[in-house]
């Protein structure tokens, strides 16, 4: 069946509705084609196959066929119930039909002579016609190979099934197992010939952390994003991919200024932060990052803006008490509907799950300002690569909302230096505020400087600041002292 496949016209795609995947695949699965989904045990192949049908049923009422070679339909129905998918109801509505090709545990099968899988093909054609299906999932190829002795026959028949599905204009998925995360696509050496398109799902153990990724290995004649993209599985929603490099930085840039919540700091920044900017406040522990965050929220609420705080270091009680100590009433702000505080331990979930939840909260609450205190706390629960992806993804997402975002980052040493967070985020941020301890003449003082203020002039001095019951007060520059930012302050007058 080697028909000539021209490079044109462009292969049409259908959206899967699997969040993130449609972006990575530049529009979904090639229409009327078969895509192979290959992965090791536990890589969520079956889930992907089920979700492919479930999303189309829920979004557009397009019917789908599920051909199962492995699990019994009853098991599949039960397993996906927790994800909020009621297959039984869809079956009753004629939107879902099983072709049950799972092995019979009692009846053995003997082979005596030549055969083909014509009966399976007839059942698939019948099922497609019966409910007018446009989508089909087959799970999994390994299980059908296990049911027959002659792999060559199965191989040829899978090819025939893929061909017939194409004639029927049914977009399909075949899942296949691999024994290792990197290496040959599938176990049977046939998979890549059966399908024009190959998607790999991975579940890799990296620094004692499980990390799920998906990668489109081959998309014949059509474009897609290259490389591995992290994904997670969320109860009630299924697979959610996180398309990092697929995101575009095409947000508008605002020239409207908003208050940082601190008049002195506004003045330093040339009149406040920009309304849709990302600000990073970095400093050692105790230098005043949480204070800057608190004032930032107060500044928003004062102007009737909705403020959202993600706190990864302190409890709600601590945060409210801190704020009170600086003359800021979080409770009143909350009661007025202008503040939402979300506290979470970084260790409570994977980074991907945190990201999904944060996005959900942001989309739901629709804040004007978002603060994250601290972003660097998340470093603890991720690999460097995972953390980088998290920061990039969160930053891009916030920028797309066109709201102001303030992130704090804790530097590992008391006297300065940079953190991993800063390294990953600095190019994405519009403004960077550094908070530093300055040791002089046997006393610890605190200094603040605005290192970067994209699109605006700003004060380049390092100002000393004090904290009292009404918040932060900026004072005079540290004249005669050099080396503050390097964490090595010296009295310049002594040379």
């Amino acid at each position, binding site marked *: 069946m080697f028909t000539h496949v021209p490079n044109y016209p462009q292969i049409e795609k259908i959206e899967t509705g699997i969040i993130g995947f449609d972006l990575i695949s530049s529009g979904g699965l090639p229409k009327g084609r078969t895509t192979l989904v290959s992965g090791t045990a536990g890589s969520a192949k079956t889930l992907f196959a089920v979700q492919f049908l479930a999303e189309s049923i829920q979004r557009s009422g397009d019917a789908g066929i599920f051909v199962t070679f492995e699990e019994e339909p009853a098991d599949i129905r039960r397993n996906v119930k927790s994800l909020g998918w009621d297959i039984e109801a869809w079956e009753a509505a004629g939107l879902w039909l099983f072709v049950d090709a799972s092995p019979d545990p009692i009846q053995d*099968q003997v082979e*005596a002579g030549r055969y083909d899988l*014509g009966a*399976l093909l007839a059942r698939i054609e019948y099922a497609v016609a019966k409910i007018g299906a446009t989508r089909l999932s087959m799970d999994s190829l390994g299980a059908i190979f296990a049911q027959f002795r002659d792999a060559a026959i199965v191989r040829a028949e899978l090819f025939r099934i893929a061909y017939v599905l194409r004639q029927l204009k049914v977009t399909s998925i075949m899942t296949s197992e691999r024994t290792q995360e990197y290496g040959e696509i599938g176990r049977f050496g046939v998979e890549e010939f059966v399908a024009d398109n190959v998607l790999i799902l991975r579940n890799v153990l990296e620094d004692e952390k499980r990390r799920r990724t998906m990668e489109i290995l081959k998309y014949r004649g059509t474009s897609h994003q290259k490389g591995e993209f992290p994904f997670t599985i969320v109860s009630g929603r299924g697979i959610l991919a996180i398309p990092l490099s697929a995101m575009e930085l095409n947000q508008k840039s605002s020239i409207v200024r908003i208050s940082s919540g601190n008049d002195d700091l506004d003045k330093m920044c040339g009149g406040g932060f920009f309304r849709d900017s990302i600000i990073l406040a970095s400093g050692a522990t105790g230098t005043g990052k949480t204070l800057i965050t608190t004032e930032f929220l107060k500044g928003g609420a004062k102007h009737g803006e909705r403020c959202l705080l993600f706190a990864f270091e302190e409890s709600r009680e601590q945060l409210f008490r801190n704020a009170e100590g600086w003359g800021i009433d979080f409770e009143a702000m909350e009661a007025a509907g202008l503040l939402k505080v979300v506290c979470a331990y970084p260790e409570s979930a994977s980074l991907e799950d945190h990201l999904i939840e944060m996005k959900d909260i942001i989309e739901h609450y629709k804040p004007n300002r978002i603060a994250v205190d601290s972003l660097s706390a998340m470093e603890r629960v991720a690999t460097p690569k995972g953390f980088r992806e998290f920061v990039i993804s969160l930053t891009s997402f916030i920028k797309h909302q066109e709201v102001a975002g303030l992130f704090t980052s804790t530097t590992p040493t008391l006297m300065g230096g940079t953190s991993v967070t800063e390294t990953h985020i600095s190019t994405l941020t519009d403004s960077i505020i550094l908070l530093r301890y300055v040791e002089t003449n046997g006393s610890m003082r605190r200094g603040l400087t605005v290192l970067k203020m994209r699109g605006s002039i700003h004060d380049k001095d390092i100002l000393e600041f004090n904290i009292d019951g009404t918040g932060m007060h900026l004072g005079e520059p540290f004249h005669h002292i050099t080396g503050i930012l390097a964490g090595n302050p010296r009295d310049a007058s002594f040379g």
Partner: protein
Amino acid sequence: MKSDSRYLLKLFVAGNTSRSELAAANLRRICEDEFPGCYELVIIDVLRHPDIAEEKKILAAPTLIKELPLPVRRIVGDFSDKEKVLAGMGLLS
């Protein structure tokens, strides 16, 4: 329907092909040799009755289901190998 049928055999084939005919002929010959006059052979074309194929969970064609006597046995192929067919039916000691 023969009342004295001890053997109830259902043969599932996919279309009127040479393989289907070969399978049916091979099977009839085996039956006549082994249990003449006391078997019933039903041939079902899955292209015309895909719903029955679904119900019986048939994948391969040809597939033979020996429904009686119990236990139920399945044999796939064109039955060119008589020994294997008999072994599959559980008739070889």
